[in-house]
């Protein structure tokens, strides 16, 4: 098939930047990575990009296609080529470009290192010299986080990081959760304190680009939420982000609805809130600052209050509260309808049923 590509070329030595179009002949099964290989081999040997495993596990070939971060090796080109679309390929965002599609990963790894990304076990070695026994259920808490291949697709698209480049970001924080959620790790409090720093979890703007782009189903935003839940459960809540979140809890169980006007002082503290007075007055003139009294109270709000009491006794605090829903949410990715084996074997066009040579073939 014919594939046309536009590639943003960049030379950090000269600063030259140019969008170049290439037209190639590629096999129908070709991925974006295969197409780049053809361009490099046969059209322009100076094209630079990273690659290695070409099977979605090494994390080398993160780049952007039409503005969205992808793994080049996971991106099949057939439909795009058939539609006559000419995609624009460029380097990942939020990282400095070195050449063409190659970014400098140094800032990325620096944030990874800031997580102290190694187990800090609460034991020397288990007494019997064997493994530390843990149930699969407990390990499931870090299952998604352990899928991360450090490709950078999440970081590329992080809206908060665009605005605050120092934000630790989705990749690093997912790695952090991988340890906070690990029952073998004994540094939970120290980690949560560190991840609650100025550029930590509460910098996340919940744009969900990381979840959307992650090619491995890590869902880094969910990992950040788990860290938030763990922080609040551990009483590490001095950050304005944590206070903001806690005010919603308070509102829900007292009036049912957000107590909007009190949100600013409850988040920022009274002193900071006073500094916002002029701004708040502007809003008040337009009815944007509803009076806190009498409060807007939901009917039967005692139910909401009692629910909180009840669930807090049920041991699903912190990250477990998130993890309990993952099994169901994962089904959204799976796309199967629970057919029986017989139904699967009988589907039109199905491959033949298995049989052993001594059995008569079942046709």
């Amino acid at each position, binding site marked *: 098939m014919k594939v046309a590509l536009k590639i943003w070329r960049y*030379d*950090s*030595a000269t600063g030259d930047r140019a969008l170049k179009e290439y037209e190639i002949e590629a*096999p129908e*099964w070709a991925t974006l990575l295969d197409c780049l290989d053809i361009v*490099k*081999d*046969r059209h322009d*040997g*100076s094209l*630079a990009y*990273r*690659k*290695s*495993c*070409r*099977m*979605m*596990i*090494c994390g*080398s070939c993160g780049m952007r296609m039409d503005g969205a971060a992808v793994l080049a090796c*996971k991106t099949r080109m057939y439909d795009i080529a058939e539609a006559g679309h000419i995609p624009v390929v460029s380097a990942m965002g939020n990282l400095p470009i*070195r050449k*063409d599609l*190659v970014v*400098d*990963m140094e800032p990325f790894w620096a944030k*990874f290192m800031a997580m102290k*990304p*190694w*187990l800090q*076990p609460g*034991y020397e070695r288990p007494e019997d*010299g*064997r*493994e*530390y026994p*843990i149930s*699969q259920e407990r*390990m499931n808490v870090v*299952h998604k986080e*352990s899928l991360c*291949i*450090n490709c950078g697709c999440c970081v590329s698209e992080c809206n908060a990081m665009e605005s605050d480049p120092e934000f630790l970001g989705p990749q690093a924080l997912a790695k952090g959760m991988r340890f906070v959620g*690990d029952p*073998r790790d004994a540094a939970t409090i120290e980690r949560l304190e560190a991840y609650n720093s100025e550029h930590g979890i509460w910098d996340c703007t919940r744009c969900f680009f990381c979840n959307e782009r992650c090619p491995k189903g890590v869902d880094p935003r969910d990992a950040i939420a788990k860290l938030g839940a763990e922080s609040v459960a551990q009483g590490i809540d001095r950050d304005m982000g944590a206070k903001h979140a806690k005010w919603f809890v308070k509102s829900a169980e007292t009036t049912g609805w957000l107590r909007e006007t009190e949100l600013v002082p409850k988040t920022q503290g009274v002193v900071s809130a006073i500094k916002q007075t002029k701004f708040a007055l502007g809003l008040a003139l337009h009815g944007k600052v509803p009076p806190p009294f009498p409060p807007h109270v939901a009917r039967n709000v005692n139910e909401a209050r009692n629910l909180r009491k009840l669930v807090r006794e049920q041991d699903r605090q912190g990250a477990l509260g998130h993890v309990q829903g993952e099994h169901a949410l994962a089904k959204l990715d*799976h796309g*199967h309808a*629970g057919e029986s*084996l017989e139904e*699967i074997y009988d589907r039109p066009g*199905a*491959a*033949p049923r*298995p*049989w*052993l*040579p*001594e059995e008569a*073939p079942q046709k």
Partner: protein
Amino acid sequence: MIAKHDVLVVGAGCAGMRAAIEAFDAGADVAMISKIHPTRSHSGAAEGGINAALGNASEDDPEIHAFDTVKGSDYLGDQDGIQILCDEAPGDVYQLENWGAVFSRTEDGRIAQRPFGAAGAPRTAYAADITGHVLVQVLWEQVCKRDIPTYEEFFAWQLVLNEDRCQGVVCWDLLNGGLKTIGAKTVILATGGAGRLYTGTTNAYSCTGDGMAMALRAGLPLKDMEMMQFHPTTLAPTGVLITEGCRGEGAYLLNKDGERFLKRYAPNTMELASRDVISRAEQMEIDGGRGVDGNVLLDLRHLGAERIIERLPGSRELAMTFLGVDPIYDPIPVRPGAHYHMGGVATDVWGQTELTGLYAAGECACVSVHGANRLGGNALMETITYGKRSGRHAADWALSHTTVEVPESAERDAERELSALLDRTDGERPWSIRDELASTMHENFGVFRRERQMEEQGRIVAGLRERYQRALVEDKGEVFNSDLTGTIELGFLLDLAECMVVAGIERKESRGAHARPDDYPVRDDENFMKHTIVRLVDGAPQLSWEPVRMTKWQPQERKY
């Protein structure tokens, strides 16, 4: 020379990182060189698991593990090396777990283990079907913890030989450009395999046999180079791996009629026979017209959606992405693909080569623990146990020897070669040579080998080497010049292909991965229970033989 270290590890996959960690813990100043970031290493693509007789799923013993491995090797494995591997495996796996490896768990919270091919017990510890990824991550974490420096995106090109010792490595700095020489008292090669010799391979683009070729060019012997394992379940057309774990979980292999044909080849173990046996069986089915477009069918349907999703999510993802096949509903078309080099740089059981100060570990080394056929799950184990052992020995040696001297000529010679490559303005683009090498190796040196084809391949490789002398590097720049490194890699591959063909022609028997159905269809212990050794003499590969190190297992007929 930009730096020097006690121990310099070339390659940062499982073997390299494990070696570096051990050398560090032994007190050495250690650094790693890697042409890709450590977590990008191809060890991460290992899927099914790592073998150790933990006995978590049923009773097991290192002794049984060792026997399975000896038998699996078709009696070409060195039994002392195998015994060490199997004895140390459990402790080494526990250590990985203690470091934080995210293994799947049994009901009682132990490391879960699954059945694998040709194993007498469910011995393969696993993390779903991303075991390699999980191990790479935990080793990288431990490297980070120790703050072991990595020369990242440094392309190791030539070993520095001085006073009959290996004293460093000349590298090309891929990200910034320029030759950089790093001195070292000891160098450990851990560069992995050379699957890129073949069109259909499970191996990454990075698997170009760099360490083997560097050692060969430095005058060292390569052992059992004809022994290239073909994995039975890889995806057409490029060879992406579908784990043996699928069959470990109970998947069937079917021909086009739906017949579980392995009953006719390996009646006892069926789909869990050893890889060489299954790959041959598949090839016979395909050659006999019972395949589906050059494939057989890996059928997971009866495992059910839940088990597939829980235990084999990565395999499902690969099949869906690359073939559009959902294994819950349809069998996956698979065929044999080049997977693992049993051969490599000859070492002893401490990873030492015959050159003082030079070690090798992992796939680029040949202890040999795999002989003529490796068992699934033993490769990861070898990277850990022998990575550890070579790191320990190299550190001990380095700490008792003081000097590092890198003659200026080392970098100067490399500079000259580099100029020759980069100054060439006219010639053939390397891809055509690379693609021809890979397709002809597949055709003439694949699952089955025939004298005439191997000789033909010898001529083809010679012709390609000739053409390589005129290979044109188009990119003349400094920053991320992968055109240059790709061309150097092709040179490495051509050297190795030559060695493989020489060894393959001379092994006039069928053993493990080396199957000669037409002229020598059976194993010949009397004449060939010995290793091939190839080294360069005056620039040409020269073959010799070395006995197998046997301890207690006498060769028997191998049946599955």
